[in-house]
């Protein structure tokens, strides 16, 4: 038996030392080894203590328990300050605890996991060049899976998050967004399609359309409500993460595609939205347009690291609501190794944001929380995002396959964007279809390109 040496704080101290010394991920063994062997049990990397909510809460909480105002103090040290505020404050949010996901393959897309594994096995490694862009061992721009499977610096963590946001070469979501006022009443409702098309950093390992200077094209098409329907934006990211993306847009009132200034990224795109272009996935802006990246802490934390699709609506995929209509009723679980990392908007001198802090699952470099702070250092908003498998959706436990046609799809599932200062909420979930647009886990790359990712596509979309 493990004795005092392995008390509840031992591994927390270990993780902090890891952060301080710039060591890689893994306690019992480097996580790369697990990836390389296509291992399916994270317990080979992390001890039970880091995966047990009972231990981390000193026996006060176990899977199945509900965390609310009455017991939140017992897990305060496992929550980010935003979630803690939502539970302990006037919102009275609740969460419930589920057992942690232990198969690392279920924490990302199958293709990304396989590509990462292949990279490790083949010695395909990444590093940051003089411009802090990701290149491989030969100095080529990155292709493959997670460039830094065992991130040692904050820059590497942020690059992991930003290089391939959706963990697919092509991602095509429909987002249902409800904006609620401080009292929890719906004020605005939107449906929009969000398309990510990586031209580099692809698991296919070849640049799409030979666009080696671009990283990705990202398109957002507003299908509802009627006030914004037809509004479409196309953001073209350069591979060079120092550059602000080019932005093209189709606004119904202008009836044509026009180029738009893209340097202001701290604005709600539509009335009522709490989130900014800068927020999503903690990687809304090119990584190197922010600076002073730091690892603040590494520790086990509770978060929506893997969603439970069996609780969703069978048709729409909407998670269940809780009594407070601002929040979905979702499970949190313990992640053994969370990198708390911050950065500052050094490339945006007029930014109203002083810094952002992301809470990142060190195993796969996916954040579940991205808190931005205003210029006074006060907590402003929390972009809480969850991911999961479409493996047993709804009461029918239906599986939706991903791009390979056999593994269940993995993607983001819901987002809470909560403004701590105004108490407003943008509540989003990954909806199956709405307002004439559909989520597609097997989107054809050429179709996605021609439908969403060119100025011509914007013209057709907007005028339809």
């Amino acid at each position, binding site marked *: 038996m493990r004795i005092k040496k392995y008390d509840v704080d031992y591994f927390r101290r270990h993780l902090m030392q890891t952060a301080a010394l710039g060591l890689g991920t893994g306690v019992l063994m480097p996580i790369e080894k697990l990836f390389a062997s296509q291992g399916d049990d994270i317990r080979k990397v992390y001890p039970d203590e880091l995966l047990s909510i009972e231990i981390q809460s000193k026996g006060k909480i176990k899977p199945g328990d509900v965390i609310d105002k009455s017991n939140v103090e017992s897990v305060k040290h496992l929550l980010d300050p935003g979630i803690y505020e939502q539970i302990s404050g006037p919102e009275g949010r609740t969460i419930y605890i589920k057992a942690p996901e232990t198969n690392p393959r279920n924490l990302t897309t199958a293709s990304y996991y396989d590509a990462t594994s292949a990279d490790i096995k083949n010695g395909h490694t990444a590093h940051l060049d003089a411009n802090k862009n990701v290149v491989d061992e030969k100095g080529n721009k990155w292709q493959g899976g997670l460039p830094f499977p065992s991130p040692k610096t904050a820059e590497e963590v942020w690059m992991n998050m930003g290089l391939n946001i959706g963990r697919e070469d092509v991602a095509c979501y429909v987002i249902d967004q409800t*904006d609620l*006022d401080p009292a929890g009443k*719906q*004020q*605005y409702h939107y449906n929009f399609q969000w398309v990510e098309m990586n031209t580099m950093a692809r698991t296919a390992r070849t640049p799409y*359309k030979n*666009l080696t200077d671009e990283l990705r094209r990202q398109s957002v098409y507003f*299908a*509802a*409500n*009627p*006030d914004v*329907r037809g509004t479409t934006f196309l953001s*073209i990211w*350069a591979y060079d993460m120092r550059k*602000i993306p*080019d932005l*093209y847009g189709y606004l*119904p*009132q*202008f*009836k*044509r595609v*026009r*180029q*738009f*200034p*893209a*340097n*202001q990224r*701290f*604005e*709600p795109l*539509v*009335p*009522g*939205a*709490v989130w900014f272009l800068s927020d999503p996935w903690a990687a809304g802006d090119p990584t190197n347009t922010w600076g002073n990246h730091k690892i603040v802490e590494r520790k086990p934390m509770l978060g929506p690291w893997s969603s439970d699709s069996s609780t969703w609506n069978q048709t729409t995929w909407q998670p269940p609501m809780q009594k407070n209509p601002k929040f979905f009723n979702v499970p949190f679980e313990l992640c053994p190794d969370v990198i708390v990392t911050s950065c500052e908007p050094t490339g945006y*001198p*007029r*930014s*109203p944001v002083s810094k952002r802090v992301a809470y990142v699952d060190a195993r796969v470099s996916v954040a579940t929380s991205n808190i931005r702070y*205003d*210029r006074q250092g006060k907590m402003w908003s929390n972009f809480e995002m969850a991911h999961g498998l479409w493996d047993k959706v709804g009461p029918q436990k239906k599986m939706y396959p991903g791009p390979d046609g056999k593994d269940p799809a993995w993607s983001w599932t819901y987002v809470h964007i909560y403004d701590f200062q*105004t108490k*407003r909420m943008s509540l989003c979930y990954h909806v199956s279809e709405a*307002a*004439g647009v559909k989520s597609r886990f097997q989107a054809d790359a*050429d179709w996605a390109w*021609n*439908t969403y990712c*060119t*100025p*011509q*596509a914007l*013209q*057709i979309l907007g*005028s*339809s």
Partner: protein
Amino acid sequence: MRKRMREVAGCVAGLVFLGLPALASADGYFSDLWSNTVFTGSLQYNLSVRTDGDQNQYNQSNLPFQDVAVPRQAYLPNALSTGALNAVGNLLGLAPGSLPAAGASDFTIPIPGYADTVRRGDYAPKNHLPFNNNMLRFNGRVNTPLGHNLTFVSELRVAYVPTLFSNRYNATAFGDTQGGITGGDYYNGPDTGNVNYFDAKGRNGKRLNPLELSSSNYMADLPTLVLNYRNGPFSASLGNQTIAWGQGIFLRTLDVPNGLDFRRHLILDRAIEEYQDKRVSSPALRVMNQVTNDILIDGFVEKFQPTILPNSNTPYNVIPSAFYTPLDNYYVGGYDTKLNYGFRIKADYGTWGWTLMAVRRYNPNGVYSWGTSGINKGLPTSPVTTLGNLVTTAYNLKLEGCGAAYNPTTCRLFPSTGAALASSPLTVGPGGVYSGKEWFATAGSAHLNGLAAFNNAINEYASLRDLYADNQSTVAGVERELNTFFMGSGGSLRGTVQRDYYAENNFGAGLSYVTASEHSLLDSIILNLEATYTPYERLTDPGLAHGGLKTSEYVIGFDAEKWTRWSDAYPAAYLVFEYQRRSASDLVGLSLKGYRGNTGTTDPIVPTGISSANYLVFAGFQPTPSRLFVFEWAVLWDIQGGMLFQPNVRYAPGHNINVDLFYNYVNGNLYGNPTKNVVSDINNDNEITLRVTYGFQ
């Protein structure tokens, strides 16, 4: 009746298109259509309250000299004096030419006893209309995917002006004065009865827009009725649609494919919406091909559709109501079968891009020129002492059918003065022009040349020469001659103009560049330079000559756009600055040669024109946090001394409701001669507008 049936059939056809998804009651294909079909729509109410004491300067109640008494004196015309001598000779049994020829009077010899003072307001009473715009609107849009590559999109637009608060001008209010305002052989619908907000018809009474139903207070059309096809980088759109080109907004440089429809709120709608509701849609085939990742080729062939102006005496009318509604030759001239076509190549390379375009089109603004009225209404002959009777008597004494021996002194071409006037652009009737001074003032207000317009009418219409009209070389001569005519008509003469269309080639190019700077104020500014050149175009001749004014023109537009943040609390403001220079025409397509004429009740002068028109725009918006409110503004500054300033507050409380409250400050008299700037054309349109929109889906 048959026409009405066609209208109803057209309406039904439109509704069938819009209602296509209703077939979804069947299973299978149609139920899929139904489930995939997206309906969106909006209901909107607009109310614009005048904040200006004066009414529209082109409408009956506020035309120049409305409240000014003008003395008039009739003069002896050349032809009539010579004709009178000949008549005397005839009575004496002398052979023609036996008496010595009289010297040309040149309308300088007053006719004793024929002088008066006229005040047009005695005939056209003031109309104190408090509301400019009182309109209910519905827009419904249906998007039906018909397969992987095909989408059918249709849109129904309805505008309705309730009777309450609307302009109740009625031409019959002039009563029997001069026999009232009468129509003739051609479409004069809006001129002879109730004010008509929406009918836009050709000379033959057929609607200019084939996909439109309209009446005096409503219109319904299908601005979009299009089948979209997409296959890879190729796409095609077939059907009724609009096409917008160019990066520049507000000031159109490369945006040449469509004309504009000004009937609903002129250019005074919420500025940031640009020409969303204005472009005239047209049956067209548009194809686009993204030939490389950076280069797009975009081409179209479309049925030519003209620009539509507000009708006479409607609140935003821009054509002096002393004229009849222009007779549009769109159908009789065969322009309805003409095609516009063009292409552009557009390349974007991130921070910079370029565009080339070439378009062959019929200029949608058209060319206005004097037109035959077709209204057979003779000079008044009662009582016998009227000048009209004297002229009629003299006219009737002339011989009809002189053939090659015709001269206006002894011969006449028509059986009566009414028939002669029917073949001329002038018509006896109230609400026209009452004096020579008013003639020049009216011409000046419309950027026309009163002297040239007078002479062109006489030169181009033998019927007027037949009625003793002669050319004049001076403003004073025109005044004397016109006063004679007006007195002979028993009050005023109304004018008729027609509109024809001419083909032209537009060649254009554009460059765009996005700045990068360490200084945040200079960073990420999008700069666009666009230019077009039209080597042979025809504008409306300021003298209303047939065939218009042949010229060439370049238009250069420059704009700079930027988002900038002023504070931590507020989102970034959007700012756009624009400049446009036009070498031959103004913003609405009128020749600059008609500028710098006289204005209001100033003494008549001949316009000397301006060499170029230069416009500046500064517009933008500042949202509040969460964009609940957006403060918008747009300033159009004509550097010759005119300004249109529109501040707007948009409130989006949610629940698909938007409320706009905006003010249009219009001042064409900032400095200098107001007829040197285009803003003075809408100088009386100061108003505050409340607009409430409810959207549904």
